[in-house]
């Protein structure tokens, strides 16, 4: 295992993506809270349900899926372009001639780092999303702070966190391995490089959504 390279990838994928993932999670939480508050208006459902719904929808679906789709765009295209550039500049050939196991050195650390760091990002995204819901719902007067926090604690199922982590690891594996494949086998030319990078994102997104559906079928 190439630990130095793996740590570099963890830094690139994790720290490098933290800002965008957190920002998107914040708004997703806020929008979910506002939308649900609107649905609840003029109904007999208690307002603390806003916190409960934001929490569950975030943990079960929005945090892992939306974060993975965003990361497929950011991390996936970056990986595909990096490996594709290395292929075109003959750097992968150079490594092979040196006797380096290029798949082990270039692909392994990226996939491993992704599968380790992306679930952490998704956990953070879930937390930030719940905070986003709080900020939006409380500041808009849809619910009191006490009720929102009560809702966040209400009817909590640990199993949903397990589902989120399963999704996180599967999505991380999909987006890193698809990007590595598309980048590693790129042909010559800048057009081909751009195409591979785009294909990596599109294919990852489709496979992530398909995997989301299959996991939902299996785990619920």
């Amino acid at each position, binding site marked *: 295992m190439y630990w130095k390279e793996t740590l570099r990838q963890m830094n690139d994928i994790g720290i490098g993506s933290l800002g965008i993932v957190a920002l998107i999670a914040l708004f997703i939480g806020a929008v979910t809270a506002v939308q649900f508050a609107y649905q609840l208006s003029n109904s007999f459902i208690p307002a603390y349900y806003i916190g409960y719904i934001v929490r569950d929808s975030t943990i079960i679906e929005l945090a892992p899926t939306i974060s993975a789709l965003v990361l497929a765009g950011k991390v996936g295209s970056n990986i595909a372009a990096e490996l594709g550039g290395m292929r075109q*500049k*003959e*750097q992968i*050939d*150079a490594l*092979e*001639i*040196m*006797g380096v*196991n290029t798949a082990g050195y270039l692909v392994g650390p990226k996939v491993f780092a992704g599968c380790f760091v992306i679930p952490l990002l998704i956990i953070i995204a879930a937390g930030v999303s719940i905070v986003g819901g709080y900020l939006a719902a409380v500041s808009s007067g849809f619910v009191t702070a006490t009720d929102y926090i009560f809702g966040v604690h209400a009817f909590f199922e640990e199993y949903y966190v397990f589902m989120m982590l399963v999704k996180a690891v599967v999505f991380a594996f999909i987006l890193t391995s698809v990007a590595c494949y598309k980048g590693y086998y790129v042909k010559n030319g800048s057009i081909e490089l751009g195409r591979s990078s785009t294909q990596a994102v599109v294919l990852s997104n489709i496979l992530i959504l398909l995997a989301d559906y299959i996991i939902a079928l299996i785990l619920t």
Partner: protein
Amino acid sequence: MIKAVDIRKSFGEQEVLKGVSATFEKGKTNLIIGLSGAGKTVFLKLLVGLIAPTSGEIWYGETDFLKLGKQERTDIRREVGMLFQGNALFDSMTVEENVRFPLDMFSKYSKKEKDLQVDKCLERVNLVGSNKKLPGEISGGMQKRVGIARAIILDPKYLFCDEPNSGLDPKTSILIDELIREITVDNNMTTIINTHDMNSVMEIGDKIILLHQGELAWVGNKKDVMTSDNETLQNFIFASPFLQRLRKAYNTR
């Protein structure tokens, strides 16, 4: 010594190499020359094991390379250095890190020993003082030198160079040629150079192999070039009227 026996390579319907056999000698600079599309790069990539031939044999000394397992091939490759046409330097690493990379991957030397070896190698290619620069901050000629330093840091038995003079001015090309020649002789390596630089042919061509349309068209050395009657060779080497006059003058001296 490296020997290629009846090498054939096809991509789909197109046969790029049509039964090429050649021997590349130790301690000499062996040149593969030919027009663009003659199959030079494919031949070099086959020799170094980056692509597999459709049929034929490649011998590294007494070892049939194509019959080796994965680990044995990796062992042979650690005795191979290669200078790429585009240098293939790692952009994010400094000159020093690029040269040290093979040592980091495959040696158990201490950091101090590695630093010493890198400095020695950079001195060998006249690049003292450029250790901390990135490849993008140095000239094309210097990048070639870094590529050579990285290729020879593990003291290889075999050195492959793909178009080492491409993109260089004539003076720098001569310096790079001289450097490759010196290293080949000093380290007693088997060096194979893929080129269509006529100056290289005439200066460092200890053994020259001409490929034409995927076939071996001529074998000789730099002295034979001037006197050979091989039409394909003459059409390739003395393509311009100036070079034709030069050859005539040489032969009537």
